[in-house]
């Protein structure tokens, strides 16, 4: 019965040109909830629309337009305050990008895509395999290294210390004048204190060993995730000193609405989106596109 297909179209048909009523606001609320925006953020956005309706009469189309504008504002805010619209490695310096997140969200795949993009754009690129825990994590990463033509620094021995791998990789990066060092980390749930501490240690080693490097600590969020995504962002922000986020798996029907709360409450600029399993399926983040897709018929 209820599928997302045509929901917006249906809504517009149903509401026609009539002024928005309280019932229509319920429908718009549904639209946001189903995009995983979450009940609290949805309440906030809808209530600003309600305030707006007290000032002027709006039809459905104008109402949706207003919502989109509000959403875009929320998402753009951290990007604006970061001072960087488009995240690219700085030339002439060592850039270290650390990819972190819970299990299975797409860290390794995203790293492979970034390695490809970076080396294709003539940045000297290196990969550190700091997931020493998951079964065949290094083998998986090496396939991505081959595909993107980027070398992978790893330690195949069992229970190798991830911080030691990062240490080695930084040494290699310095020796070879690398522009961008990409660090893959093991998936970890934010409730596992020992694993979160391990991450803090990795971050600290990078900061200490190459204080003049430009470090980006990026949280990978799966678009199909619900409200737990916000807890993830809060917790990783503490341990890994996050500077941004990447949303993956947007090629499905998931909308990634939780990233709205992540932008608002954790102030994280979204930097890239992943939309497929192929090496080219990564795009710089564009808030207009994102909001349109979030509320589009799919």
């Amino acid at each position, binding site marked *: 019965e209820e599928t997302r297909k045509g929901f917006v179209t249906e809504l517009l048909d149903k509401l026609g040109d009539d002024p928005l009523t309280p019932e229509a606001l319920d429908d718009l609320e549904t639209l946001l909830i189903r995009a995983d925006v979450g009940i609290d953020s949805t309440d906030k956005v809808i209530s600003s629309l309600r305030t707006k309706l007290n000032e002027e009469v709006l039809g459905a189309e104008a109402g949706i337009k207003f919502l989109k504008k509000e959403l875009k504002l929320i998402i753009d805010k951290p990007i604006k305050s970061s001072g960087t619209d488009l995240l690219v490695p700085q030339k002439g310096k060592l850039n270290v990008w650390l990819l972190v997140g819970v299990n299975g969200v797409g860290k390794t795949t995203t790293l492979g895509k970034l390695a490809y993009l970076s080396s294709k754009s003539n940045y000297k690129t290196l990969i550190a395999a700091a997931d020493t825990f998951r*079964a065949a994590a290094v083998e998986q990463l090496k396939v991505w290294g081959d595909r993107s033509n980027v070398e992978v620094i790893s330690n195949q021995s069992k229970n190798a210390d991830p911080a030691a791998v990062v240490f080695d990789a930084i040494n290699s990066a310095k020796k070879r004048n690398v522009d961008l060092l990409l660090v893959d980390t093991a998936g970890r749930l934010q409730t596992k204190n020992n694993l979160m501490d391990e991450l803090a240690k990795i971050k600290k080693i990078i900061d200490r060993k190459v204080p003049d490097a430009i470090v980006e600590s990026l949280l990978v969020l799966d678009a199909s*995730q619900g409200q737990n995504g916000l807890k993830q962002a809060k917790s990783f922000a503490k341990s890994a000193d996050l500077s941004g986020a990447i949303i993956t798996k947007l090629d499905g029907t998931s909308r990634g609405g939780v990233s709205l709360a992540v932008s608002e409450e954790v102030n994280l600029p979204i930097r890239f989106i992943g939309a497929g399993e192929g090496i080219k399926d990564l795009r710089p983040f564009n808030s207009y596109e994102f909001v349109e897709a979030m509320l589009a018929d799919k």
Partner: protein
Amino acid sequence: MFDELSSRFEDAVKGLRGEAKISENNINDALKEVKRALLDADVSLSVVKEFITDVKDKAIGEEVVRGVNPGQKFIEVVNKELIKIMGNENSPLNENENSPTVILMAGLQGAGKTTATGKLGLYLKEKDKKVLLVAADIYRPAAVEQLKTLGSQYELEVFSAKEKNSKPEEIAKEALNFANENDFNSIIIDTAGRLQIDDSMMSEMVRIKEVSNPDEVLLVVDSMIGQEAADLTKSFHEKVGITGAILTKLDGDSRGGAALSIRKISGKPIKFIGVGEKIEALQPFHPERMASRILGMGDVLTLVEKA
């Protein structure tokens, strides 16, 4: 968040104090809070709406016995209904008495299928089954090595493609032959992650199912999933046909509302939960524990008692 939820609940339930019966009038605030709680727990909206209607019908007219306050009664109705929907008790794995039991794993990318394949393998091995794990994911880099690594931890045999360009359905078929010739009695087939809207990958799943004639098709779902749970379950059930589900990554702090969506939409039980990355970390699913988790009921119940 639990605290906030609980205090809202407390307010809503206070409204019920002193009433002798639960009625349409005195229940609405409390229902609203249940709706919020379920959405916060990522239960899919369509399922939430149905649930609220059901609970309302059940609760209205409930007499409140002396000594029990109406709020308490209401929470009890909600809790019971949640448990009922999720199947009341644990539902065991199907077994085939005449030929090897075949279990097929399915789900989105990264949900935890390969890990769950290892987990079920160990679980069955501990029940003295001769277990064969089948690596039928030909797409994900190092998927076969991953399963082999997991299997090697407990000497679980892994069957993988003998030729380079074998299709998953061919691998499954060969594995079944191999299992029959070598007296394996439990076969677990790991498959690649796929989106429910990817038609060619969904048809592949159907072909794997056709050749392997499984006793179980288990949908593996990440407990952190959001509203997508409903659509995911619906599509996999309609296109492939599932017999049950495994909910993974419950060792974290997700509320796991997907459990309700999966059961309500497919009618099929959740059989196991994943509670860690190691292949020992598998537990049978218990509806009553899940109900408490979804509603944050532990907190709520104590508050209700105070109210």
